[in-house]
């Protein structure tokens, strides 16, 4: 492999192979598509788990336990390949029902698996912090005449999300790395591009090292962004 062939692969690794969007662009798309619904679902799950009625809390806890105790790869296989086992799904595909057709789309399945997976981890983290929310602040909220829902919305959530920023940073790095599994369901993200280059050339170092370098850059960029947010929202924890 000479330098020119390596340079020719760069656009494919970054945005497109000429026909489709590939590489970094797909990784970024998967990450962004998963991060917003994942965070929202995590907040809802955490609130339900800590402040919801007991049966709801139990349900959320067991669902979250499933997603945290099994490999994401298996979850993805369950969604993308597993669902075809059921007649409802097969029937939906035959009748072109838009809802079931979604489960044939690799991007949708990968995003769904990532959302469910990351929300389980983040919810556990947020729930852990909500449990230790200072009692005095809660009482102060009551003294102001706030309802339970208002206290959760105005006091608990902002405080928890702020204090959770350093831990969330870790989870977001894990989510970024987890997007690499999308390559197992035919998607051409950074890892997918590297694997297809390997399959075509049987030269492992260039494609996988390029992929590794791209992920490193993304990871450091993510950590840098989080350090900015910490400076902004956790300014009160800094010693002057």
């Amino acid at each position, binding site marked *: 492999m000479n330098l020119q062939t390596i340079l020719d692969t760069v656009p494919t690794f970054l945005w497109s192979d000429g026909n489709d969007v590939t590489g970094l662009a797909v990784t970024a798309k998967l990450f962004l598509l998963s991060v917003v619904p994942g965070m929202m679902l995590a907040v809802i799950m955490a609130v339900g788990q800590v402040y919801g009625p007991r049966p709801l809390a139990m349900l959320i806890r067991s669902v979250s*336990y*499933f997603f*945290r*105790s*099994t*490999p*994401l*790869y*298996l*979850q993805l*296989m*369950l969604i993308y*390949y*597993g*669902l*075809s*086992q*059921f007649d409802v799904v097969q029937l939906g595909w035959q009748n072109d029902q838009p809802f079931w057709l979604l489960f044939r789309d690799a991007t949708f399945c990968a995003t769904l698996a990532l959302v469910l997976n990351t929300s389980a981890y983040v919810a556990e983290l947020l729930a852990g912090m909500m449990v230790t929310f200072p009692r005095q602040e809660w009482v102060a909220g009551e003294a102001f005449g706030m309802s339970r829902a208002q206290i959760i919305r105005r006091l608990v959530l902002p405080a928890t999300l702020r204090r959770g920023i350093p831990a969330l940073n870790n989870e977001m*790095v894990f989510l*970024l*790395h*987890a*997007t*690499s*599994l999308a*390559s*197992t369901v035919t998607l051409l993200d*950074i*890892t997918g591009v*590297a*694997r297809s280059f*390997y399959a075509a050339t049987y030269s*492992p*170092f260039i494609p*996988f*090292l390029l*992929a*590794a370098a791209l*992920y*490193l850059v993304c*990871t*450091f960029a993510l950590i840098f962004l989080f350090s900015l947010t910490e400076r902004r929202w956790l300014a009160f924890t800094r010693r002057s």
Partner: protein
Amino acid sequence: MVIDYLPLLLQGAGLSLCVMLLALVLALILGLINAVVKLFGPPWLRWLSTGYTTLVRGIPELVIMLLLFFGGEMLVNGFLGLLGIGPVHFNTFLSGVLAIGFVFGAYYTETFRGAFQTVDQGQLEAAVAYGMHPGQVFRRVMLPQMLSFAIPGINNNWLGLMKASALVSILGLEDMVWLAEQAGRATQKPFLFYFLISLIYMVITALSGWMFSRLARRYALYSSTARDTY
């Protein structure tokens, strides 16, 4: 029909468990060595360890595994070729274990480094004053106290390692995930088999959670500071 596949799946589960446990041993050893190097090693070695942990933790496991799995064999054979020795073929099992152990060694380095730092400096000086040599200080004073702090991290990383081991099926090792895929195809019941395998992972998670909480209670006895925590 499903029953017919159970012995095969259990056999696969045994293989998966072997991969996990051997990789765990490798990762623990790598982590311990690197943590000690990071804290007490000469600057150039410390620099190397930092590079290892930073790089490995910044790249997805799957990419590192693919790189080591496909690149490792080529690298070794290239080296052997220079020495005039014929090419060797890497065993899938061994490469899987080495790749996972290598990745999680980096995570364990950070766990152990953090735990070593919680050991009271004064106790180390006291141990030296008693005339213990560095090996004894490490074995008698540092290791038992550090373990009580490291146990939650050891459990977390072990669970991560266990889940990452499912990826060896992508490399072609016939572990339980790979077998579940085949069985699911043959019987057209992929959900059922993937779900059965998921249950095995859940059982392992639950069992190790229980075991580690017992270990944590046991090791809390050795530590002057951790005792209040448990």
